[in-house]
């Protein structure tokens, strides 16, 4: 009889525990954690448009995925602020601009976005940072590189040496602009220079607006050079020196979270996704290969918000 009573009591304890864990504890936890979350969204590697690499269990790279993550963080009511962890040398100006506009929309809804720079947040990486409310960088972070370039190679002499003669039938005089089998004409140079200048102007305006600087001041420092995090702070391109956790704490303070905030990470690689998807190195190689111009491949020479050389 004594054994039965003990076991009945034990069973009751177990059942009551399950009920509390399933229902009561959840509501306590929800109340405690409601609105106490800070999202961390990672911008890693070269910024390129499109889906990026799709693995069996994850997606990585490509701004479509990044925008999706920003959307999710924006729509999640429990997330009060977003930290953008940037570790990127830049990339396509169009893809960068698209993400930058998304960041501005999130900020317009009243959800702050703060940047934490990793090893580098240069060019397109800085463009994104300039769209955020506050920028944290490490003293040795490589940043800046505010500028735009359009890569172009003239392989005319090589083609002659190997006996290749490109023939083309074109619908208009500029249809084969940036062809690698002939020198660029002055008119074409002017067309492309105008495009680059327009995108550069847009970049400068984004920096001026985001950093509360006047256009002329930005133009003086936006000659394409790279700055360290320390230099960038002196120039007003960065707000604070600090790492990712300083940025998270700063964001928590900004939104009025007392104590340690709960962190929700987006797009962080797990061991399975590392096995199932392509690596960042492979992605960088792919991006570099895509930049090699081929005949009539105008897509490969899209304006790049990326440092030309490191």
């Amino acid at each position, binding site marked *: 009889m004594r*054994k*039965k009573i003990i076991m009945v009591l034990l*069973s009751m304890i*177990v059942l009551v525990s*399950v009920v509390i864990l*399933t229902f009561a*504890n959840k509501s306590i936890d929800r109340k405690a954690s409601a609105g106490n979350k800070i999202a961390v969204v990672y911008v890693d590697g070269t910024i390129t448009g499109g889906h990026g690499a799709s693995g069996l269990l994850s997606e990585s790279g490509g701004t479509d995925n990044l925008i999706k993550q920003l959307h999710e963080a924006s729509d999640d009511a429990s997330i009060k602020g977003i930290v953008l962890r940037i570790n990127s040398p830049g990339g396509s100006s169009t893809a960068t601009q698209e993400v930058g506009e998304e960041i501005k929309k999130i900020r317009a809804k009243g959800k702050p976005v703060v940047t934490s720079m990793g090893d580098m947040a240069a060019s397109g990486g800085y463009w994104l940072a300039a769209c955020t409310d506050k920028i944290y960088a490490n003293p040795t972070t490589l940043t800046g590189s505010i500028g735009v370039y359009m890569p172009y190679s003239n392989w005319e002499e090589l083609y002659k040496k190997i006996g290749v003669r490109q023939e083309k039938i074109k619908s208009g005089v500029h249809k084969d602009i940036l062809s690698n089998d002939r020198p660029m004409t002055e008119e074409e140079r002017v067309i492309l220079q105008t495009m680059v200048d327009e995108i550069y102007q847009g970049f400068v305006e984004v920096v001026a607006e985001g950093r509360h600087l006047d256009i002329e001041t930005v133009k003086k420092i936006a000659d394409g050079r790279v700055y360290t995090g320390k230099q960038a702070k002196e120039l007003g391109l960065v707000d604070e020196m600090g790492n990712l956790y300083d940025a998270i704490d700063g964001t928590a303070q900004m939104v009025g979270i007392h104590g340690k905030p709960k962190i929700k990470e987006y797009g962080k690689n797990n061991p399975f996704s590392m096995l199932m998807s392509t690596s960042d*190195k492979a992605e960088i190689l792919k991006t570099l290969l895509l930049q090699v111009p081929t005949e009539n491949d105008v897509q490969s020479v899209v304006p790049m918000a990326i*440092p030309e050389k*490191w």
Partner: protein
Amino acid sequence: MSSILETLYDMLTKPKEAFQVIVSEGRLAKSCQIVLFSTVISSLAAYANVFEGGFKGAMLLAEIICSVLLWGVSVSVWHLLAELIGGRGSVRRLLTAIGFTYFLQLLIVPIYLIASFLPTVGFLLSMIATLVVAVWSIVLGILAISEVYQLSGGKATLIYFLPVLIFIGIFIVMIFTASAFFMSAAGDILANPPQF
């Protein structure tokens, strides 16, 4: 027939005697109920704050299916090994005895509840409790094998761990093979890393 509650109580306090009763009575239906009930309750507790909605239901279903499959497969393998080593016993009785040991999973549930209120040491407490119950389950599993097949403790231990050792061996071989493959494939990239 002894009461199930009394048998479970004895399994906690006098496991050898309890297994003698379990093996002699061979109540497989009761054992099956214990496996299902323990799996559902412990899974509900473990996933209480982890998953939501339909996904939680799917995880619970997967847990139940896996638990029953693991129960059946592990007992089949142990039975085969026990027969090979020279033990004589019934697979049905081993299935019954091992099923009763699933009851131990329920003992972690109150610990999970306490741990959920202790944010810092809670995780550690859950881990320690899980470890203790895991070790206890292993001991009971070995006792069950020993009792069903009338084998010595050493042989029962060998039977219990042999499938795990074989699995670890296969896993190590697979890791080495995969590493060699990836090292070879990535050799060119590592030798000439992309420059910026």
